């Protein structure tokens, strides 16, 4: 157990952990909101995230991004990539709601069955991305779409349009522009969503359905629309997370959703499922804990850290760190 290493590189590990955790936090938002409103674990949310990463990568490839792109053009491309990721993720989230959940919710099926349906859709979506070369070949489009389809199950790189620029130093670690972008961007998004839920009319609708669906319906809230909106917001946030993720890691795979989804879900539970600020806290804490754990125990134990943390919290504080549910948010 190498505590020395941890203390020597504390700033480095903590800040990069926060960056990783920001991605977890944004994805966790989707899980926590759907759970707050429907008491359902949205298993397909991991694929919503993955599609976002692909959209961001494809956008930059389509715009001809390369290491030689000028900074201004690069920033423009990245903005397009961000928007693309958010739109695609939002769209996929709506599809998930429409096809995996709504038919079952309308029939009052048990929650476990809805879970299975979401799992099926998750497999379907991931495989569809992994088989995109075969699917486009079927339509005869594979030549035109070659750069996006390639050998479909391979790693899809984000072209190196940005060079991370060191901005300032903390405790021996040079914080780069990408680190700032990821952490800052995530914070802005989270605050935005938090304010939206608390202040806006639509946000009140979401909270009311989370609190008591029947009374909300009596009060004239259209619960179908609310559910759709919940999924959409979760999807948009996942898309933002996808963009930040691919910026940091530099590449994506068709199966990247799964493990990240499980971790993000862990983060949501850690912070208190149904609680938005809990998702933020949980994500950041998880990201940092994983890095610290890797440092002390060895990188191969990274994932174990996440799950042990989860099990411990649930045993000693089952409602999570921040506890409150979506419905009980103070207005």
């Amino acid at each position, binding site marked *: 157990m190498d505590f020395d290493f941890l203390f020597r*590189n504390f700033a480095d590990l903590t800040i990069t952990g926060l960056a990783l955790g920001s991605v977890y936090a944004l994805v966790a938002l989707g899980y926590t909101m759907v759970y707050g409103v429907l008491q359902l674990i949205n298993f397909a949310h991991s694929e919503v995230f993955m599609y976002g990463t692909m959209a961001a990568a494809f956008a930059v490839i389509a715009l001809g991004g390369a290491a030689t792109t000028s900074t201004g053009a690069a920033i423009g491309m990245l903005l397009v990539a961000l928007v693309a990721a958010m739109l695609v993720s939002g769209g996929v989230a709506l599809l998930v709601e429409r096809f995996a959940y709504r038919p079952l919710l309308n029939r009052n099926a048990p929650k476990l069955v809805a879970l299975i349906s979401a799992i099926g859709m998750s497999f379907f979506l991931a495989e569809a991305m992994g088989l995109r070369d075969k699917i486009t070949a079927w339509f005869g489009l594979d030549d035109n779409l070659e750069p996006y389809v390639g050998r479909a*199950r*391979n790693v899809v790189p984000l072209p190196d349009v940005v060079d991370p620029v060191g901005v300032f130093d903390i405790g021996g670690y*040079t914080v780069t522009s990408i680190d700032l972008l990821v952490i800052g961007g995530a914070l802005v998004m989270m605050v935005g969503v938090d304010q939206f839920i608390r202040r806006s009319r639509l946000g009140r609708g979401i909270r009311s359905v989370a609190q008591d669906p029947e009374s909300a319906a009596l009060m004239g809230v259209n619960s179908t629309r609310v559910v759709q909106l919940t999924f959409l917001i979760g999807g948009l946030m996942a898309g933002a997370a996808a963009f930040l993720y691919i910026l940091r*890691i530099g590449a994506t*795979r068709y199966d990247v959703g799964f493990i990240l989804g499980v971790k993000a879900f862990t983060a949501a539970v850690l912070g208190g499922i149904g609680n938005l600020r809990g998702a933020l806290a949980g994500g950041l804490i998880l990201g940092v804990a994983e*890095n610290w754990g890797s440092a002390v125990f060895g*990188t191969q134990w*990274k994932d174990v850290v996440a799950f042990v943390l989860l099990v411990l919290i649930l045993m000693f504080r089952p409602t999570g760190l921040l506890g409150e549910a979506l419905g009980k948010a103070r207005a």
Partner: protein
Amino acid sequence: MSRPNTFARLGAVAAVAALVLSACGTTEDKTPSAGTSNGGPACGEKLAFMGALTGPAAGLGIAAVNGAELAVDQYNEKHADCKVEFVKSDSQSDPKQAPGVAKSLIDDDAVIGVVGPLFSGESEAADPLFNEAGMPLITASATKPTLSEQGWTVFHRILGNDETQGPQVAKVLTDIAKATKPYTISDDSAYGQFLTGATDSALGDALVGHDKIATGQTDFQATVTKVLDADADAVFFGGYYPEGELLIKQLRAGGWKGTFVVPDGVKDNEYIKVAGAAAEGTLVTCPCVPGDTIAAFADAYRAKFNEDPGTYGPEAYDAANVFLAGIESGINERSAMNDFVTNYDGEGVSKHVAFDEHGESAEIPIWAYKVEDGKYVALKQLA
């Protein structure tokens, strides 16, 4: 009222079943044509390749299967009326799928030999089945040394194993990379762990640190921190290209400037494509010969596949040719083929092909390569 009806129905079903089964006869004993045919090449035989044709490791699998396929095509051109069928079995190099794939090859009586399995992990799972069934195999890429120590009479390896590669990696680190502070990273595969372990032993006290990552991992930040903290000037990564390409990208993004050294598991065009600029200057060790320098082979390969030969292409080509030589001499059953392979002694494009009593290759060239301008360039033969 319903009981007699149900009874009658059950009885009827039973009667029909009895009728059908009574039509049973016995198949004539289907003996395969015994031993060798009259001096000419054996016809109707199949040669199989087993490895990852899809999935994350497919790059290496496709490079190898193409080499073997080229050999089969050339053979079939010469023997147009007595062709050999080439069976490509996709195991995704997954040890879980390997036994099932192996079994289906074993069950196909016409399959007389296997080029593969591609990776060491799947070999550990599938070779016991091949051994029990007496199916001769020549692997052109599985390099874990313990594979030849299990007592499998059907096992043959046409390239060097990691016990010989390990010390060569250490030499590359110290002599070519001129590293004073080498660091090693292994993945969790059978191949990566053994090779990195062998390298660590060869480096001895010079090694400044070691880390382990998991297959499928994408975020290597903690590892980057460790490398920077150890102030390593060279890093050896024992593993495969899906992880290697992301690792080097993140190392460079983290500001690390040292030399990256990788083994044959990373030597694939995907690595260069994904890692992009970060891949420049990477040193590679490989018990494989540079295919593009073997003129006849390289030209024929390019003519057929429209690209340069990949890693293990020449080795798979040689392996297939051993089997094809056996078929040409008239062998059409497995134990005779196994004897033929074990006793084979001839020239291949990658080396002089012969196997020792454990199935290991008698000649084991190891080469060093470098990534320059987005391509693998052969530096020198190390052994």
